């Protein structure tokens, strides 16, 4: 890593999820140079960790990896992973971004991605890519199809045994590596910082984090992924094949008590998709979705919902009050039906997935770009009837979930609009 590296590009894209990747490609394919800054060690964002994606049920990797590869091979795109934007300054018509490249403790110029360090490392930690359902080594490549294929070491877990350094054929383990600054000058900025799922701290009664068989939807994605942690769908507490799986909709959306009154747009569809996939991996299991309204509003979504109903997935309009468990860690869902009777009932399931909503992935106000945010931290558009990408900050454009929850097809389309708006802005400079 070169200390104090400086580059100049036409556009800076912050974030490399599907929206950032697509915005970068749509800029670069128009002839502009692009720098991407991504805080994770790999590009790909949330989408690369998903199993299959609605409504076409393509495997998420099949859609994301080629985009990741195109970005990494594009002659006009430079991607800086494991890097954070500390601040962006506007001087006249130029933005100057101060970026810190975090140390991987590996010499990227020398590393040949042979994985020998990973093989010999004796320390395992929960793998966040597998949502904690699997483990990874303290020095490891983030996931199979990560780009770039460099391992990252986590010094807070490293026991300094030196096994990795001894086995490395290129002598590229560097325990003393320091963060290095990078300065990016750009004429336009595209914000594509995506989302995190709603924290459930304000909704403790749903049991996420305390009850082993209550899962986050991202964990369920990993269970369903063909190359997931167990290679099949098993429940975490005891490895049992679940016979009964329930989804709790709006667990973290349309709920003022946790500060997320808006609809997160994707949860109905991802729950229906996961349920559909479960009918394939667990053909005899009962699958129930507890919901308020099913919002299958995108192209082909209603038909997808109808198929799920025809496959025997049961949709119960009910509000879930809390989730507890019995002695065998079987989650018990207390519901009040909103159709039929209304006396509260308690239903036992083997596995419960909370359909968490989406909140902003990053506080972009810290960049001081003049892009206004709404009450929930999403970027506001300057005139939503005229453009879906132009923000109040001149030269600052927004792509994807940074403006509010939306699904993958909507984010991909959205990214193209950010790219052409940015291109038009640059042309007029």
């Amino acid at each position, binding site marked *: 890593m070169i200390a104090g590296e400086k580059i100049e590009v036409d556009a800076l894209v912050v974030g490399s999820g599907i929206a950032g990747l697509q915005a970068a490609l749509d800029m670069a394919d128009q002839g502009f140079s692009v720098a991407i800054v991504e805080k994770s060690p790999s590009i790909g964002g949330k989408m690369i960790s998903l199993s299959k994606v609605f409504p076409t049920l393509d495997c998420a990797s099949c859609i994301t990896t080629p985009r990741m590869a195109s970005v990494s091979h594009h002659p006009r795109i430079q991607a800086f992973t494991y890097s954070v934007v500390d601040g962006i300054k506007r001087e006249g018509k130029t933005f100057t971004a101060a970026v810190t490249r975090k140390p991987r403790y590996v010499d990227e110029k020398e590393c040949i991605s042979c994985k020998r360090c990973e093989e010999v490392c004796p320390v395992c930690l929960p793998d966040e890519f597998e949502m904690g359902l699997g483990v990874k080594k303290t020095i490891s490549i983030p996931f199979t199809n990560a780009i770039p294929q460099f391992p990252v070491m986590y010094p807070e877990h490293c026991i300094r045994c030196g096994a990795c350094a001894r086995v490395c054929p290129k002598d590229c383990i560097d325990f003393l590596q320091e963060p290095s600054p990078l300065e990016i000058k750009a004429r336009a900025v595209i914000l594509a910082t995506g989302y995190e799922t709603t924290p459930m701290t304000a909704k403790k009664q749903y049991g996420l984090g305390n009850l082993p068989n209550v899962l986050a939807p991202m964990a369920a994605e990993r269970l369903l992924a063909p190359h997931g942690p167990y290679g099949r769908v098993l429940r975490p507490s005891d490895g049992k094949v679940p016979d009964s799986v329930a989804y709790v909709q709006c667990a973290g959306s349309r709920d003022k008590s946790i500060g997320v009154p808006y609809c997160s747009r994707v949860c109905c569809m991802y729950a229906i998709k996961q349920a559909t996939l479960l009918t394939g991996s667990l053909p005899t299991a009962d699958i129930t979705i507890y919901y308020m309204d099913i919002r299958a509003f995108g192209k082909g979504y*209603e038909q997808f919902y109808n198929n799920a109903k025809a496959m025997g997935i049961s949709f119960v309009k009910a509000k879930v009050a809390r989730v507890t468990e019995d002695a065998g860690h079987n989650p018990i869902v207390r519901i009040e039906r909103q159709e039929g009777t209304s006396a509260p009932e308690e239903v036992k399931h083997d596995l419960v997935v909370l359909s968490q909503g989406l909140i902003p992935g990053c506080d972009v106000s810290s960049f001081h770009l003049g892009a206004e945010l709404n009450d929930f931290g999403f970027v506001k558009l300057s005139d939503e*009837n005229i453009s879906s990408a132009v923000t109040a900050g001149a030269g600052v454009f927004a792509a994807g979930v940074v403006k509010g929850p939306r699904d993958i097809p909507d984010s991909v389309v959205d990214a193209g*609009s950010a790219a052409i708006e940015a291109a038009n802005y640059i042309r007029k400079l």
Partner: protein
Amino acid sequence: MEENIKDEAAKDNYRQAPKTAVYVCHCGGNISDVVDVKKVAAEMARYPGVAVAREYAFMCSSNGQDLIIDDIKKLGVNRVVVAACSPSLHELTFRGVLQRAGINPYLYEHVNIREQVSWVHKADHEGATAKAVKLTQAGVEKVLRQDPLNAIRVAAEPRVAVIGGGAAGMKAALAAAGKGLEAVIIEKAPRLGGKLLELGKVYPSGEQASSVLKKFEDLVAAEKLITVHTGAEIDFVGGFVGNFKINFKKSDGGMAQIKAGAVIMATGFEHYKPHKGEFGFGEAANVVTLPDLITLLKNSPAGRLEYAGKEIKSLALIHCVGSRQIEGVNQPQADGKVNDYCSRVCCTSALYTANQVKEKYPAVQIYDIYRDIRTYGMRHEDYYEKASKDGVIFFRHAETDQPIVESARVAHTVKVKDVLTWNEELEIKADLLVLVTGMMPSDIKFLASQMKLAVGADRFLQEVHPKLRPVEAANSGIFIAGTAQAPMDLTETAAAAATAAAKAAILLAEPDIPLEPFVAVVDEAKCTGCGLCPAECSYEGALMMTEKNGKKLAQVNPALCKGCGACVAVCPVRAIDVAGWTLDQFDAMVDAIGKEG
């Protein structure tokens, strides 16, 4: 393909002895959970003509691609077969890899062992593995007989034609012009605006549609690169990517032609028109649609909501009229199909309008009869909440228990089996019945047939893939903007239209456009000039008879030929082949598949 294929590299490659590499992809498990990929690779390594065979978790990933590049550079591999997903997903990805490694990108064969093997033979692992081997062997035979090809390059008109001058059309034209492209809007109505001309306040901004339209019109008028033809009636669309021709009758009756490198379809939507008798529509008085209510709201005097001169004190909204329809329950359209899709905007639009009614006429009682409330947008949930707070009463019915309307002279009674009150059948009396109608695509049968556009089961224009190529029609050079593709609101329309313009700008970034070289090629030595083939050709100008040195010959225009192969089938002397798909290749593939063992 981004760069021109280097002829030199191609020629060198051709002279070399073929050296084929085979890669079997696990597709993360999509394939390897069913197919024994190690066995397939081992079998392929033994197959004649194969220099190396490997298997890998994700061939399309950067690592997978690097495997191929390494083998090309280090082992001198000059032909590649990847057995993986459908070629529609990744054939282009891998051709790009060959190109980056410096060999002709068409010396590549993509074998589909996912859709055609692992996904359809889940229960028979052994059979699936054997089939994967056979198909991959056929792929090897094909690639061994593959000639290097060069993309056909055609000069492109640096101009975008936008069909439709509503919000989507104006936005697409503005975005394209912003990039420096000429844009021509062809609108059949006498003025620009489309549905913006009819709408009232638009959510979430609360701005009047007329004011949004004014902004768009001003922007269009200020953009020198945009030409607008209103009152234009298209009577012919022809040509191909880079060179489309659109003939239309101008508003003054004269004819005009536009030449364009790309076409953006922004033909918009129509409101669903209820059948006569559908919830009393067209039969009983005071049954209107949501657009009618919006007009009513605009025109009613303060203090008195009026319809046909009478005061309306109560109204009932019925959702999902013309949307989310169910076969056997709802009456189909003329084509025999019901509208089984959600129209996306109507829930929000209905509640937004209900709130406006309540604001202007607080005494009007509103009933809302729905199946699911789909106020999905950032501030849309607020409209739902406001309506509930302001006393709009909601009734929810099951999909098969449609509300029943009984109309008397003065008012309507709607019978709803309301699931929110334990499936009680409730009777709601209302002065006005408002059918919350969905969206249908504009009637573009003529354009769709002229341009050979794919239309989905929902009758909207069909994109190639919702995530990979979401605004592209299958026909190269044609893009889709806005509600011609699917129901969407104004902001979503702006996004789709701008993206369509972005794709057009990318296509037209270079003065010429590369086309696939899979076109018919005539072997002049064999051709007897019998003239059978031009009669079979469905693409005007693609195949014609000509004379060369006194000999009659078939001649192909590669820019117009689609490589369908109809001419190949009728040639009695095997004088025509489709490049990349020759009869010799097919023969060898069939032999490989049919071979015992």
